[in-house]
């Protein structure tokens, strides 16, 4: 597990281990009476993707680049919105059905900033952070294809 603090309020991790939403939420809230809004996103391994039944998936990444890419995305988000704390965790390795893949948690004074930044970070992560999914199905395994809809979502933030 590798951790990087881009500033006191940011936490970015790329790791094999699972994460705990309650612990992440506690870190967003504790001794933080100035933020009235906390938004979290959790991405999980779902059973069906593009019509195929998934049994598990394997996440590969480019270790030297992943944290740097995530850090840049968080930095971008901070330039756009007034944010309190930001926590991003992305898992790599083999993940079973329903396992947690990714977490983005944001605290902010106001909810609009927290919602926008959380969705922005996910949209950018999906198109700019060097992770690749290989899905295992009953009929063998295959690399997941990038979705045009993810490109479009990311472009809407321009």
């Amino acid at each position: 597990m590798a951790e990087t603090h881009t500033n006191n309020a940011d936490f970015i991790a790329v790791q094999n281990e699972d994460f705990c939403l309650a612990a992440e939420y506690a870190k967003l809230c504790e001794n933080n009476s100035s933020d009235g809004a906390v938004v979290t996103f959790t991405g999980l391994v779902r059973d069906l993707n593009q019509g195929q039944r998934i049994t598990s998936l394997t996440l590969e990444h480019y270790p030297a680049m992943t944290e740097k890419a995530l850090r840049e995305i968080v930095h971008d988000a901070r330039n756009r919105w007034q944010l309190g704390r930001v926590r991003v965790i992305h898992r790599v390795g083999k993940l079973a059905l329903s396992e947690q893949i990714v977490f983005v948690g944001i605290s902010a004074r106001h909810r609009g900033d927290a919602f926008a930044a959380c969705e922005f970070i996910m949209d950018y992560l999906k198109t700019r952070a060097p992770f690749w999914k290989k899905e295992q199905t009953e009929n063998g395994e295959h690399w997941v294809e990038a979705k045009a809809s993810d490109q479009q979502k990311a472009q809407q933030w321009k």
Partner: protein
Amino acid sequence: MKVLFFAQLREVLDCDTLVVEPEVNTLAELRAHLQQKGELWQEYLAEGKALAAVNQTLANDSTPLSEKDEVAFFPPVTGG
């Protein structure tokens, strides 16, 4: 110059790292240079098919290259 390949590209080209010293000044030139290595390289390194990063930052064909750079080629990302 170190060149890395990830995910499907690594598998198809059967190559995860390459150390090369070509006479190239831009990412476009490196891409063209590597595409000469064979049909699969020609196809899978095509612009639009493979993304590239120079020193761990997303790059485009006009990005300048120097000897000490780390270049990576990979398919469009699918994390999250």
